């Protein structure tokens, strides 16, 4: 019976031999729309090499230009003034960023947040960098999210609170001075194991940000909690811990938006 059943299933599930290529073309077309840059990788060998060279040139040119501007600014500063005192002169207060949500491109208005300042005022206890701590900037979608300071951490949450049936959705930024990223990641991995059914081993990543990534998921239901933690070097032998919290069904929504925000996270070297 088993053999006959398999034969019948193979017979009944036959398909047009042309379907494979036709479907692949549709898939590629869709992926090209979603990520034109990625489409270049199809015939990428030479192109990629060329593109890398171009990128290197752009980076070198940008670096040189930045150095020249920085030098000029430095020379015009009064003696003793902290270099890059006001990052707002370097980062636009607002900008438009295109994000990719479930295959659809979306324009968002993103607002600059500079750590240590709220509404242009210095935040007590957090206003100055020390030998061990660094400041940072990040852009966030001001129409969907708000940024609040809670217990020394910056927490980005939805502007409209979600109904109770949804698990927490937030993006938290905290600094752990004196703890190297590798140690912080190992520590977080252990902590997460206590609260989540599945915790993946910390791995080094370069996208959406360079650092360590730990993924944790608590079940496979639509509302199962997901936590993705990135640990980034603070440039002073310490770490920044960036924690995304959402639920499984929101992976391609809030998850994608948080990942995009991560790309805009920059540690300031002052």
């Amino acid at each position, binding site marked *: *019976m*088993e*053999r*006959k*059943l*398999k034969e*019948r*299933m*193979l*017979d*009944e*599930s036959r*398909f047009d031999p042309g*379907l*494979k290529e036709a*479907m*692949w073309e*549709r*898939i*590629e077309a*869709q*992926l090209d729309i*979603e*990520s034109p*840059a*990625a*489409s270049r*990788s*199809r015939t*990428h060998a030479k192109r990629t090499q060329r593109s890398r060279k171009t990128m290197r040139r752009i980076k070198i040119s940008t670096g040189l230009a930045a150095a020249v501007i920085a030098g000029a600014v430095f020379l015009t500063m009064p003696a003793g003034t902290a270099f890059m005192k006001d990052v707002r002169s370097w980062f636009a207060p607002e900008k438009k960023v295109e994000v990719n949500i479930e*295959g659809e491109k979306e324009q968002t208005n993103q607002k600059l947040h500079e750590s240590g300042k709220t509404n242009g005022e210095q935040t007590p206890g957090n206003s100055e960098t020390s030998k061990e701590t660094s400041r940072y900037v990040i852009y966030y979608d001001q129409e969907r999210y708000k940024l609040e300071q809670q217990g020394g951490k910056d927490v980005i949450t939805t502007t409209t609170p979600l109904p109770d049936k949804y698990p927490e959705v937030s993006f938290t930024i905290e600094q752990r001075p004196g703890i190297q990223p590798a140690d912080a990641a190992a520590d977080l991995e252990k902590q997460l194991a206590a609260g989540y059914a*599945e915790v*993946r*081993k910390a791995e080094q990543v370069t996208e959406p940000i360079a650092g360590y990534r730990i*993924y944790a998921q608590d079940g*496979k*239901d*639509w509302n199962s909690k997901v936590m993705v933690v990135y640990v980034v070097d603070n440039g002073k032998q310490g770490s920044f811990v960036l924690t995304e919290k959402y639920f499984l069904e929101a*992976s*391609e929504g809030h998850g994608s938006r948080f990942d995009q925000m991560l790309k805009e996270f920059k540690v300031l070297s002052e």
Partner: protein
Amino acid sequence: MERQWIERILQGDRSAFRNLYDEYFEYAVRTAVMVTKNREWAQDAVQETFLRAYRNIWQYDKSKPFKPWFYTILLRECYRVMEREKKVVPFGEQLDQIAVEPKLPDVSVDLYAALQSLDDLYRIPLILKYLHDYSEREIAEMLDVNVNTLKSRLLKGREKLKKGLGGEPYGTEA
């Protein structure tokens, strides 16, 4: 080889994704045709499955086999398409609900028709088992049930098939 493809896909390499597509396409289509019982819906489900697999490959846990992860997406997409067509209840509910005895075919009905007349609770595990020769552990992982539950569903499914065929003895080559 599969792991290398996945590593390359993570770097955005479309040719590695094509390799994966070549590897999984045929059985993905066959499974979707069997599950949805509709060739157009099956195409929609398979296409969306590959797109989702590509977009979300970073969520795949590399310490685990890729196949169950991929087929979980495929089955969800099959149900998403079927739900869209208002033919079935959502995937999660489908797996949890207590099976309602379907109208079984009479003795003249062939093996395939008997299988497709079964409730999805038994039909899907049997398709995965006999179309693909997947292990019970793999199927349990794809359907997110424990192995004993899966074994029980396969056993009951076979019994219902046998009953639907008018008592053809299970396990024979007849």
